């Protein structure tokens, strides 16, 4: 009998405990209950309910009571507790008041409905008391001017837009300066990435080889052949000796070469190439096969022979070219230092 009574008491206690555990809990809490006029206080609303319950959260716009204003609020945040049987919900408000006095924050009412219930039930938090005090005013002291607003510390976030504007202006200014300078120099503002140029003699020899492979004169294209040949030589003379041969006539090119102290053998060979090319280009000449081949061979020999020479061709001046005929080698007087160059284009100081 005593065992039956003991069991009954235990079951009643468990049922009561379960019943108590399933009661929702509404809590409202202030981080302080006394504040200076205009200060800000945090109000936290929380609600503990069983999982699956339907809860209607109290809704506020910009005030809680007539004297208490909401500055900002977070969204309702929910967390599951005790293996998902309970849900803890929370919302935080930043509130302020601009009137001194004691204010009662009335209880917050939460409506909820258990699963299977047809109507809503309510749970309320405890009321809160907020004391808003103003600064003590001394009537004994003299009146003073109204103080200006307190200076807030200048943060990086505030400075960031100005820094960005400054950087944009700086970049814009530099870009404008760069574009104007390039325009004055008559150079393109932006250059596409290009492969570094080959040395003039390598480029010329490659081009001459390609020209040979094209077999232009063999197919009757004499004009194209000799035009290409002289263009390769003109580009070479420009790149190698800074003679603006592309804008010069054959006669003018020869004048430069004669003044450059190149030996007669080389000037004669160049003259022959240019003369024949002029005849083909402007006088409809059709050279013999040997003549076509000879022009290309002479051009190749000229490039090889002058490959290691430096500087511009000036008569007797810096960078003058001297080629010794008898030794089949040439020397380049490059401003005081003399180099001897073999037919292969390799040079050494003598």
């Amino acid at each position, binding site marked *: 009998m005593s065992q039956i009574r003991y069991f009954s008491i235990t079951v009643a206690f468990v049922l009561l405990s379960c019943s108590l555990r399933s009661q929702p809990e509404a809590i409202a809490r202030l981080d302080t209950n006394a504040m200076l006029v205009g200060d800000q206080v945090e109000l936290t609303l929380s609600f503990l309910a069983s999982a699956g319950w339907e809860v209607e959260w109290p809704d506020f716009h910009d005030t809680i009571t007539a004297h208490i204003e909401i500055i900002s609020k977070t969204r309702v945040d929910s967390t599951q507790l005790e293996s998902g049987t309970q849900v803890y919900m929370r919302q935080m408000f930043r509130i302020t008041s601009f009137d001194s006095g004691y204010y009662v924050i009335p209880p917050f009412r939460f409506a909820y409905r258990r699963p299977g219930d047809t109507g809503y039930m309510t749970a309320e938090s405890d009321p809160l008391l907020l004391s808003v005090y103003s600064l003590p005013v001394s009537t004994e002291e003299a009146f003073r001017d109204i103080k200006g607003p307190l200076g807030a510390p200048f943060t990086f976030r505030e400075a960031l837009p100005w820094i960005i504007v400054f950087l944009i202006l700086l970049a814009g200014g530099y870009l404008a300066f760069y574009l104007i300078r390039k325009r004055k120099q*008559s150079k393109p503002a932006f250059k596409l990435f290009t492969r570094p140029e080959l040395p003039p003699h390598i480029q010329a020899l490659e081009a001459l080889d390609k020209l040979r492979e094209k077999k232009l004169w063999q197919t009757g294209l004499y004009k194209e052949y000799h035009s290409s040949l002289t263009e390769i030589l003109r580009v070479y003379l420009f790149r190698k000796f800074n003679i603006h041969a592309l804008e010069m006539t054959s*006669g003018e090119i020869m004048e430069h070469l004669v003044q450059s102290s190149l030996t007669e053998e080389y000037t004669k060979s160049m003259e022959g190439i240019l003369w024949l090319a002029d005849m083909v280009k*402007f*006088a*409809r*000449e*059709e050279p013999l096969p040997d003549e076509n081949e000879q022009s290309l061979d002479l051009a190749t020999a000229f490039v090889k022979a002058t490959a290691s020479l430096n500087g511009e061709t000036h008569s007797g001046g810096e960078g003058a070219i001297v080629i010794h005929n008898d030794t089949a080698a040439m020397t380049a007087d490059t401003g005081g230092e003399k180099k001897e160059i073999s037919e292969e284009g390799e040079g050494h100081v003598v």
Partner: protein
Amino acid sequence: MIQTDIKELNERIQKESAFVDIVNLEMHKVIVGQKHMVERLLIGLLANGHILLEGVPGLAKTLAIKSLAHTIDAGFARIQFTPDLLPADLLGTMIYSQKKEEFVVRKGPVFSNFILADEINRSPAKVQSALLEAMQERQVTLGDQTYPLEEPFLVLATQNPIEQEGTYPLPEAQVDRFMLKVVIDYPKKEEEKMILRQNIASTFPQTNPTLKKEDILKAREVVRDVYLDEKIENYITDIVFASRYPNQYKLTRFEGLISYGASPRASIYLALASKAFAFIRRRGYVIPEDVRAVAHDVMRHRIGLTYEAEAENISTEDIVSEILNTVEVP
């Protein structure tokens, strides 16, 4: 080398151009130095283009033209342009013949083969226009009758660049009708000494007529046949276009300095003068050197400069030189 028809043309030129040396010889009997001017006169003669000579007084402009006319057995007339000259004094007029009881034509000095228009800028625009119209059309209308001018018809005009007061500068459109504008410079020191000796001697040398009109007309036909390759044509058009659109030819520094570029007449005359130059050099084909040799004389009066160019002391000579140094040679 396999020769084409150019060889035949070269032979023809060798034959037909023999007179060039004779003319040069005759001219240099009386003209000391001024090789450039004499050569340009020959170019004008061979290419059938009129010439404007510009130079300070005393540089033998008039003498050169007179001598050239005397060397060729052809009609010569000298017209001294003055402010009171009338178009009728130049072209001729209709006068009433009491004997015939009708109006008869009295032809003016323009009806000659070689016209020396001395100091052309001293006459007003209406007289200049009358002459320039005759130059262009090669015919003159008097009353209701049109009279073609006899070939060869060549106008050689002179003007003095330093005296601007009381002159009527030729408008651009009219200057354009001259094939060449030749600027004459002072002789060299040695030449000056020879001029001095020649002029203080008791007798002044004279040129002899060594050529006939027909010889000139025949030579002109050969000049027309001188071969001008497409590459040279492209070179000529590039030079002319560079004067019109300098930016397209890397001549950005001339942007805003050229008010107008050379006209299509420049291209035509560049080609013709180059052919004549090649003929004088005994060649049956034109090479870029020929174009460059005549480019200044053909183009200097066909390019207009802006005030900015004048302020920067840039002349058309500078522009033509820079164009020749920039345009790629074929």
